[in-house]
C-alpha cells in the first residue's frame, strides 16, 4: 500500500523541470513563441507569394524583433545583487531599438512626397 502511494506521487524528471520554470519565464516564453510564429508566418508568406525581397526584409525584422527575446530567455542570467554589466546595456539597447522601431512605424506621418516619377498633382 505504501509503495503504491509513493509511485502515484512521483513526478517525472521532465515535469519537475517544467514546474521549476518561474511564472514570468513562462509569460515571456509564450510571448516569444507567439512573436516568432507571427513573424515566421509573414516571412514564409513573402517567399511563398513570390516576393523574395520582402522575405529577406522580414528575416531581418524577425531577427531584430524576436532574437533578443531568445537571448533574454536563455542567455541573460545576471547574478542577483551584481553590478550592471555589458549584458544589461545590451538589454537596454534591445528595448531602445524596439521603442524607436515602433515609434517610427507608428508616428512617422504620411506625406505627399514627390516621387521619382514626379509628383502627380504638381508637375505637368
Amino acid at each position, binding site marked *: 500500500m505504501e509503495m503504491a502511494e509513493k509511485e502515484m506521487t512521483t513526478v517525472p524528471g521532465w515535469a519537475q523541470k517544467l514546474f521549476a520554470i*518561474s511564472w*514570468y*519565464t513562462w*509569460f*515571456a516564453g509564450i*510571448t*516569444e513563441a*507567439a*512573436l516568432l510564429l*507571427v513573424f515566421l*508566418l*509573414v516571412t*514564409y*508568406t*513573402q517567399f*511563398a*507569394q513570390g*516576393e523574395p*525581397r*520582402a522575405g529577406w*526584409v*522580414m528575416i531581418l*525584422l524577425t531577427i531584430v524583433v524576436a532574437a533578443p*527575446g531568445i537571448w*533574454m*530567455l536563455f542567455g*541573460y*542570467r*545576471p547574478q*542577483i*545583487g*551584481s*553590478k*550592471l554589466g555589458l549584458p*544589461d546595456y545590451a*538589454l537596454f539597447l534591445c*528595448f531602445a531599438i*524596439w521603442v524607436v522601431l*515602433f515609434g*517610427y*512605424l*507608428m*508616428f*512617422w506621418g*504620411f506625406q*505627399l512626397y514627390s*516621387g*521619382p*516619377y*514626379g509628383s*502627380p*498633382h504638381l508637375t*505637368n
Partner: protein
Amino acid sequence: MKDRRKYALLGFFVWWTLIGALMTGIPFRIGTATMYPPEKGLGTIPYKDLNIANLQRENYNDFASFAFGGHPKRGPYGTTFDMVNYRKSGGPFANASWNTMAFGSGDFIRKFYGPVNPHKVKLPGNEQVTQYLKELAKQLGAAAVGIADLGPDPLKWLMSTDWTGRPLHFKPEENRYAIVAVHIEELADHPFSKDMSRSTLRYYTKVSQNYFYDDYIAGQLASYIRSLGYNAIGHNNGYVRSIPVAMLAGLGEVGRNGLLLTEKWGPNVRINTVTTDIPLIPDKPVDIGIQSVCGMCSKCYDYCPGRAVAAEKAYGYGALKWNVNNWRCRQAIQIGMDKDIDASTCTLCRDVCPFSKSEEFSANRMGRWMVSRSWVARKVLVKLDDWLYSKWNKHDLKELITERRARFKESQKVGYVDKSDLWMTQGLSSEEARHKYATEIYPGGWKGGAGGAAFGDLFPLYAEADMKRPEFGKWPTWYDIWGRKIPGYQDGEKGAPGLDFAAVEKVVPTVALSGYGPIVPPGDPIVSQRYHAYGLLDPMTPGY
C-alpha cells in the same frame, strides 16, 4: 540589485503584449470611423444634398464614353488570324491568347431581362428567402453577397440611359432591393509579357473568366427570381452604380483609387448586381478601415501614370471622397501599358494597393483583419508595406511606369488638351492631336486597330503591305461538321464573307454588349451606328 532577469522578462512580456493589443484592437477597437445615416452619407462617406449616386459616375453613357469614346477612325480590323499572323508588335502566342478569349457571355446577358411568372410563389419568410438567395449566388460562384435596400427612390442608384444614350425606364417599385455579389479576380503579373508566358495567359484568362462570372451569376439569379413571380433585372457592370450599391450592401468601402475595397479580397473583385422587388433583409454599410488606410497610403497616387488619383478628398458631385480624374485615367489607358502591348491593360492603382495581396495566405488575411480593427495597425502596416515591397519600385514596376510616364508627356506635347477640371469627358479631346502623335512621333500612324478590346492603341498594328494581302480581313475556306463548304477568300471576291464580326464581338467587353436586352428594338439606327463605329454589326439586325 534585485532579480534583473525577472524584470527584463516581465518588461519583454508587457511590451509585446501591449503592442499586440494595440495592433489587433483587442479587447477594444481603436480608431473607428463615423458611420453616417442614410440621409447624411453612405457608410463612412458623408455627402451633401442626398447625392449618393455620384459616388461613382453620372450615367452609363458617360462611362461608355470613358471606355470607348474619342477613338480615331480606324482601318480594317483584321481577323483573329490576321492578328496572329501580321500584327507588328507582340508575338503570335500573346496575340493569339488575347484575341481569342471571349469576354462575358451573351447567353447570360440575355437572362438579365425577361417576363415574370404571373403566379407569385408563396415565400417562406424574408429571412429565409434572403439566406437562400445569398446561398444561391455563392453556389453560382460569388465570393460574398450583400443585400442593399435602395429605398423608395431606387432610380438614383441606376443609370438613366443605356450605352447608346437611349433613356432607360426602370420602375422604382420593381427595383427596391439590390442583391450584390462579388467574385474574386486575382491580380495579373506585371509587367505584361510580349509573348508566350504565364503572365500573358493569366491576364487574359482571368479577365475573360470574370466577365463571364459577372454575367453568369447575375443572369441566373435574375431569371430565378422572375420565375418565383417577382421582378428582377441582372446587371454586370452596366446600368447600376455598382460601387455605391456594393457599399450599401456592406461589401466594402471605396478607396483612394476609386475602387471598391473589400476586407478579404481588397480591390480584387468584380461586382454584379440583381435589382428586384422580392422582399429581402438588407445588410448595412461597414467600416473596415479603408478610409483611414487610404488617408495614410499614397501608393495608387504615386504610381498612377496618368496622375489621375487625387491627393486629397473633395466633394465630388455631392460625396466627400478621393475623386479619380477619369479623363486622365482614360488618357493613361490610351497611352497603354507598353507601346507594344494592348492598351487596355493598366490597373496599376490596383496592383500597387496594399489590399491587393492574395487572400490565400493567412498572414495577408491577418493583416487585413488587424487593419479593420485598429488605427495603430493601419499606421504600422502601411509603413511595413513600403519596407517589404519598396515605396518607389513596388513589384519592380519602376521601369514600366517611367517609360509610360514619358510617353504620356510626349502625348501632352503634341496637343492633348487638359480637361482635368471636368469629371468626365469624351476621353480624347482632339483627333488631330492624336493623329499628329501617331504620325510624327511614331511614323506610320494609324493603319488599323485591334478590334474591340484594344481601345486606344496608339501604334500601328499592321504594315501597309500586310493589309493589302488578299486574305487580310477575310476568313479562309473551311468545312463545317456537316461537310458544308463555307466559302472564304480563296473562292474569290464573290464568295468571300468579308470580316467575321461575330469573332470580333468576342473580344468586346461585356459592358459594351449590355444593350442586348429586349429594350433595344432590332435594327435600331442609333445602336447600329454605335456598333458600326466600333467595327461591329448590331447583333439585333435581322440576319445577324
